[in-house]
């Protein structure tokens, strides 16, 4: 357990185009009582801009975790994943693919592109909250993340 880390708010980037889903995720995080700053971008292009601190995202904080949906407008989630994991600096950031798809090929593709994990969003709200709680617990309490440079 890394006690120092608990003090700081965790930065989470949520890449999700559906506002309904965004709100749900927010509520779930609220219920989970993980202290975090949840930043949201609506498509793949913005996601990359945010990560590279381009344009209006010049002051963006480096996320500790990226929650990435696969089906995004403009730039597809798989492409974003690929770009992140090929970038020497960005590839250290854990990416959790969060999507409704259960498709085998999506799972395999995501892991092939070096996603850190693949989560199928449960339909049931309570289950969703549990997942989010577990996410937070795992990535921020159990796991050791690299120090930011």
């Amino acid at each position, binding site marked *: 357990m890394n006690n120092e880390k608990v003090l700081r708010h965790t930065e989470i980037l949520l890449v999700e185009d*559906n506002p*309904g*889903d965004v709100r*749900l995720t927010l*509520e779930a995080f609220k219920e989970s009582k993980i202290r975090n700053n949840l930043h949201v971008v609506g498509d793949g292009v913005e996601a990359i801009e945010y990560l590279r601190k381009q344009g209006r995202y010049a002051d963006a904080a480096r996320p500790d975790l990226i929650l990435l949906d696969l089906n995004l407008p403009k730039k597809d989630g798989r492409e974003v994943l690929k770009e992140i994991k090929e970038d020497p600096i960005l590839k250290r950031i854990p990416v959790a693919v969060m999507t*409704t*798809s259960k*498709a*085998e*090929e999506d799972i395999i593709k995501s892991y092939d592109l070096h996603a850190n994990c693949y989560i199928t*969003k449960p*339909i*049931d*709200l*309570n289950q*969703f909250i549990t997942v989010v709680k577990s996410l937070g617990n795992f990535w921020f309490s159990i796991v050791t993340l690299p120090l930011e440079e």
Partner: protein
Amino acid sequence: MNLILKLLAIIIGVFFAGYVHAAGIVSLLKDYIELFAGILMVFVAFSIFAMTWYAYGKSGDNHSLFLGAAFLITGILSLLHTFSAPFMPDFIIPNSIEKSTIFWGESRLVLALLFLASVYIYKDTYPELINRPVLLASAIVLSSISIISILFYPAYLPSIYDPDGSLSTGMILMLFITTAITLYAGYLYALRIKKTGQKNLVFLIYGSVIIVFSNLIYFYYEFSGLFLMITGFYFVHLALYKSSVELPYEKLALAEEKLLHAAEEKYRNLFDHANDAIITSDLDDTITSWNKSAEKIFGWSSQDVVGKKLSSFIVPPDLHATRDRIVNDAISGMVVSGIDAVCLRRDGKNVDVGLTVSQLRDANLSIIGISYIIRDITERKQAEATLKKTMDELVRSNTELEQFAYIASHDLQEPLRMVVSYMQLIEKRYKGKLDADADEFIDYAVDGATRMQRLISDLLAYSRVGIHGKPFETTDCEAAFNHAVSNLEIAVEESGAVITHDPLPGVMADSGQLVQLFQNLIGNAIKFRNENSPKIHIGASRKGGDWLFSVIDNGIGLDMQYAERIFGIFQRLHGKKEYPGSGMGLAICRKIVERHSGRIWVESEPGKGTIFYFTIPIKRGEEI
């Protein structure tokens, strides 16, 4: 009328010949001519016998044979008559006019009697009595009796001349009887000819009448008598020749011709009316025959093409090499049949045909030409094309439907999730904070949405069986089984289920779908349990060309009247409150099994557990 005139002419003619002869001959030669005529008569009589005897083998005509035998006897007796003439050397008893005449009389009488008897004899009368051995023996016996009686008991013979030189009463009586019998026989033959139409026998009548005249004038005009006798015998010979030699051969030839004609007719009929074009050519490709169907299919008439080269008419220019190859194959003995080809019609259009090409051989079995049987298969080709088009349509339509189902389910999931989740959020946040009605409403809404969501999820899984099915590869069923059971871990634990299995084989399958199959079936077995903890067994055995799997449980069972329905989409036998589930599981199982070319069915009894059977074909190379 003709008959009588002809007879008269012959009789008078011959009579005069004899008369003239007699008048102008020196008495010394007279004896020799008499001898010669006598022998000639014997010769004719014997030749009648010989002819009928030898012809009997082919003709089997008892009538001819009988008459032949009669003439044998007559011949023998006439021979003795000739040798008994006074100027001939004596034998046994001294020759005399009496001796000679007695023999003569006997021969005439015997002939007349036998002639009369022959009227009643037909081709197949009394086969036991009228055959060669019997008749020959009878003839010899009869002749012997006549000869012996005359030679050894001359005293009992009647005299011929009265003391005054005229014919004795006995002779006249004999002549009279002989004549009457012969004429009567002739009359009966006339009746027989009328009745049976045996025209050749008319010569017998000629013969008999002439013989009668010969008998009557013999004592006064010896030569004419002799000549008339020979003439009469000649007509008998003619009659018997026609009936025992000519007629049978004629009949045979006619019958053969008829058969040949009939066979040719039959062949012609077949050839002309065959539905397919039948064309024959020689080995130089010159057309030798061209039937009606060929005229119809190709548009050339028989006159246009016979004698010309086949290739120049019906073989399309670019297919000459193919044609040569086909013909060579046929000549070398290969079976060339049912080949699809294209031929050229008179109007320049191509026609799709089915070809059968074979050798034509002659009686010595050497190849003399080629026969082509050509069928217009335009209709068949069209039918095939339509069928293919329909099939392609179906496949396309099917694929489209599957894709549609998949996409629809996939895209429906997302908005549904919104409904379900937010309803649940409201439920969570505001339960108890609104009135009781609101709580109830929210409950129903959430429930409905959740169910719909599950339905769509299942529908998606169902359509994925086809669309996302992976190509088959060797799959270990044991591994698939284990995978499925581990997926069901929670249910297994909760229910305390005990799952056993036979050794499971390897099969050609989509491994993911196999896991799904086992999972659905075992999951059902666990779900539909009674108060006992579930005991489930997976069996596997070979049956014909398939592996037969069984999933046996001790659960609640089902009524066999629903055995088909449960495999339908969204079909359930229980209310949602009793057992959860959308009714899709077995439909997915069936789709998976059918994709693997297998069958799935159930055997069960309410309260007595259930057995699900399914088959998967045995891996190639492992078949018995």
